């Protein structure tokens, strides 16, 4: 008899999701689907708003990565004004994005995936959370929490608040950062660096013992997309797009954000509110691509900062290929990006431009259509706006990083289920492995469907006749 296992809701992710695992008559896994069950509607209700308000409105999509939306929206706004923003404003936006990468990656690594990695996938679910991690490894957990705080406080120092600062605006930013505040952050850098390096060392010991996970948690060839500098180095804001295939061949390079539609199409499926972006030239679903930390490190030639580059070289050596196609390595990539961000923050805090008072360019509406792109912690984020001659939004399309990983997340769920699940077993620890595979992507479903909700996870086991055989909710 064929069945379906449903995991509902999926826990320790940002947003609402459930997973359905379809079993064949012999009890083997036939297919699995990652359903995103929330809907929000930003692309409709923002129509009619002045585009100047869009950074702050779209920031409300998410409390974890509002900065990504603020920056992508402000970028689109710059293009509608047809201005080149003051150099200090660009550097300050970069500083805020680095703070965002540090805090979001720390949250993913320590708070969300840390319990799986350091307590065990099949450990007691009552303790398999950040509080369990604090109890088991107080210093390690404290370091992670303080690292996240460091990133959050960079955001607060610039924007006046940690969450939803209406700070980056079309044309630049609203305020700068004083020399005293910069000096205070400089003093905290060694601790942040130390925590990151210790986490890196700990992760490598886990990685050494995780051959099975590496080979089953989303291990398949796909394309990778992300931003690079003009030289082809790692980039997080203001760069252009590059796509590589699983062999490392560059399929598209230095593509401007406003040409994103030449690169990516969007498909939809009846069973999920999350769209399925794909690489246009290969069609759907063959054009499966991944974005985010691992993708950025795969598409770039190098990071461009010494410590992160040394780690990137080691990661590629450990993976045995220049292109790392195992999604388990997302955790590794996240730590390398925190390191890169800390190195770049160090450079930026010493940049004399940051003291400038010229922070905002002013202009009228000079373009009626624009695309803003920024690298969110989870991958490339696009805000595409059309406005009328006065600047009221007439069309809005948001392509969210998590959506771009949708095809890959579905493949990952199926791969883990096939590897670990048999028959009609709904063993908690095994199901947690399915969730852990999703957590490697650090999906932000509130963002990607622009939906309201708290983190939740559900799983169901569905028979060949469509009957739900078993169902687990957390």
């Amino acid at each position: 008899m064929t069945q379906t296992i449903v995991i509902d809701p999926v826990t320790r992710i940002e947003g609402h999701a459930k997973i359905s695992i379809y079993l064949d008559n012999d009890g083997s896994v036939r297919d699995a689907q990652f359903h995103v069950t929330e809907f929000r509607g930003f692309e409709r209700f923002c129509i009619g708003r002045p585009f100047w308000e869009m950074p702050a409105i779209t920031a409300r999509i998410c409390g974890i990565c509002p900065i990504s939306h603020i920056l992508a929206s402000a970028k689109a706004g710059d293009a509608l004004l047809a201005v080149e923003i003051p150099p200090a404003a660009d550097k300050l936006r970069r500083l805020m994005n680095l703070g965002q990468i540090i805090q979001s990656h720390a949250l993913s690594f320590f708070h969300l995936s840390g319990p799986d990695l350091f307590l065990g996938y099949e450990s007691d679910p009552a303790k398999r959370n950040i509080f369990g991690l604090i109890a088991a490894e107080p210093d390690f957990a404290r370091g992670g929490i303080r690292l996240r705080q460091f990133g959050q406080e960079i955001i607060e120092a610039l924007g006046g608040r940690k969450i939803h600062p209406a700070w980056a605006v079309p044309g630049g930013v609203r305020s700068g950062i004083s020399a005293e505040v910069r000096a205070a952050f400089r003093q905290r850098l060694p601790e942040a660096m130390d925590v990151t390096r210790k986490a890196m060392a700990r992760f490598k010991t886990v990685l050494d013992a995780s051959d099975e996970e590496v080979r089953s948690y989303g291990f398949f060839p796909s394309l990778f997309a992300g931003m690079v500098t003009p030289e082809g180095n790692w980039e997080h804001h203001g760069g252009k797009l590059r796509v590589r295939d699983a062999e490392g061949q560059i399929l598209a390079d230095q593509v401007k954000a406003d040409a994103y539609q030449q690169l990516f199409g969007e498909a939809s499926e009846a069973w999920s509110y999350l769209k399925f972006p794909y690489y246009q030239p290969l069609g759907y679903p063959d054009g499966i691509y991944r974005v985010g930390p691992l993708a950025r490190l795969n598409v770039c030639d190098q990071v461009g900062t010494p410590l992160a580059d040394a780690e990137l070289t080691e990661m590629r050596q450990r993976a045995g290929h220049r292109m790392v196609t195992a999604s388990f390595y997302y955790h590794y990539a996240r730590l390398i990006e925190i390191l890169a961000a800390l190195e770049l923050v160090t450079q930026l805090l010493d940049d004399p431009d940051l003291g400038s008072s010229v922070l905002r360019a002013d202009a009228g509406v000079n373009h009626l259509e624009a695309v803003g792109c920024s690298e969110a912690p989870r991958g490339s984020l696009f805000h595409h706006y059309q406005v009328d001659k006065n600047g009221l939004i007439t069309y809005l399309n948001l392509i969210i990083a998590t959506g771009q990983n949708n095809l890959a997340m579905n493949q990952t769920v199926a791969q883990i289920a096939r590897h670990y699940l048999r028959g009609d077993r709904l063993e908690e620890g095994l199901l947690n492995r399915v969730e852990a595979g999703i957590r490697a992507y650090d999906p932000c479903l509130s963002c990607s469907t622009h939906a309201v909700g708290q983190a939740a996870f559900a799983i169901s086991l569905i028979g060949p006749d469509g009957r739900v055989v078993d169902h687990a909710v957390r």
Partner: protein
Amino acid sequence: MAARTLTINGTLISARSNETVLEAAREAGISIPTLCHLDGLSEVGACRLCLVEIAGSAKLQPACHTTVTEGMEVQTDTPRLKAHRRAIVELLFAERNHICAVCVASGHCELQQLAVEVGMSHVRYEYLSPDCSVDISHARFGIDHNRCVLCTRCVRACDEVEGVHTWDIAGRGTNARLITDLNVPWGEATSCTSCGKCLLACPTGAIFSRGSTVAELERDASRIATIVAARNERW
């Protein structure tokens, strides 16, 4: 001018004979919430937030439009008045689309401040969620009807202080809307001198500087009274 003595909340107060209860109360340091009132403009008594209880009258009276009388006994802060005020503020929020989190005036908004003052923890009425437009056709200013409470401070500032009367109200009830000239887009309203007094007078984020971003709009409504006072002294 003759003086009048009255009590407000049991405190004996002396006021000039032509003063309103609102003026007398404020001079005595007694706060009464208002929204449609703005120093320097005429009174319309529209918002009903300044309603007070007067001994001997079953009806509640607007403090802004009630002249003091000898021996008057006024109560400004009874449970009945508090309940009415909170209901009024809730109805204002329910009538249009007031989303403080993404409003240009957040943190500098009289309606938002009123909600705090009256203890509006939530709105008990069903939101009407009307489909309101935004007009940013003017080169310097914009109006978002979602945020308008129809206090008419802009109408009066434009008419009484600037002497232009670009603004007026069209429609009735929940269909009432601010209009410029004979209901043309603001950018085509030829009578508008672009003076910005409506912006100064607006208590919410309804009228804003074009290009304002969220929580950025700061205005000083007292400048209307300053202009009026300066003009009266010179003339």
